[in-house]
């Protein structure tokens, strides 16, 4: 059983309050990894209206973008089948999570 602070550079922590866990709280998620290659596009050219403002649709979305160009291809890491495993607790100093219940209270 690990102790001390959770290394968030190597571990993922999320808040869970459903029937996958006995008690609501913060849990370390673990599972398999996968990667995909993704083409990253620039913002393209945004159409403007007669006043020079960016043209948006009725919901305010920048819907009218033309000529986006692929500027690079990146590798995106994916969490595959990840599930909550070890429960962790907020650190009393407000920075990160701990494997043990802090002495001055639970989360």
């Amino acid at each position, binding site marked *: 059983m690990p102790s001390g602070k959770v290394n968030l550079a190597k571990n993922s*922590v999320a808040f869970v309050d459903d*029937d996958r866990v006995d008690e609501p709280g*913060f849990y370390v*998620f673990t599972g398999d990894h996968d990667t995909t290659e993704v083409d990253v596009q620039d913002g393209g050219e945004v159409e403007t209206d007669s006043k020079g403002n960016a043209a948006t649709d009725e919901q*305010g979305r920048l819907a009218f973008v033309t000529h986006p160009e692929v500027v690079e291809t990146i590798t995106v890491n994916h*969490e595959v089948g*990840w599930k909550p495993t070890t429960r962790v607790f907020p650190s009393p100093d*407000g920075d990160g999570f701990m494997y043990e219940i802090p002495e001055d209270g639970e989360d």
Partner: protein
Amino acid sequence: MAENFSDEGLDRILTYTPGGSGTLDTTLFLAAITTAGFQTRSPDTALDGTKVPNRTTVWSTDYQTVAGGSTRGAGGEPTIGTGAYARKSVVNTDWGAAATNGSGRRRTAAQQSFAQSTAAWSNQNVIGTAIVTASGAGSGVAYGYANFDDASTVAMNAAGITLQVTPYWQHDI
């Protein structure tokens, strides 16, 4: 030329995204987005209660981890672990059945509560949420971004604040 999806077709799509036995992601995560982010890849339009990252944003690199001021994007999610901020896990059974809403079919999830803050979040002015596929920083994709329906900004600037949202997922015909 006319074209549209059918309700039964949309309902079938909605069994995959999210929820249902064949879903790509049995668990999704809600992540807070804040005014520290930017709408476009060039950081020229700051986010607010009526603006979210645009369609070409790449969650794992542009939005979530790249610092503001970069031509790549923003870095507008609060730091995981500061003030007890963490993404909220949304299991696929949280999503309700599809129902007609406006020009589409919608699945609405049970109300989701982020953990109560234990101190101010690193980026304090929350203007909405992203639905993402990963629990950890620098991974996964964002299916989308949304402001709050009332266009509000929630100040997560102290201990004892609980952010609650009710996400929905809609495909239009």
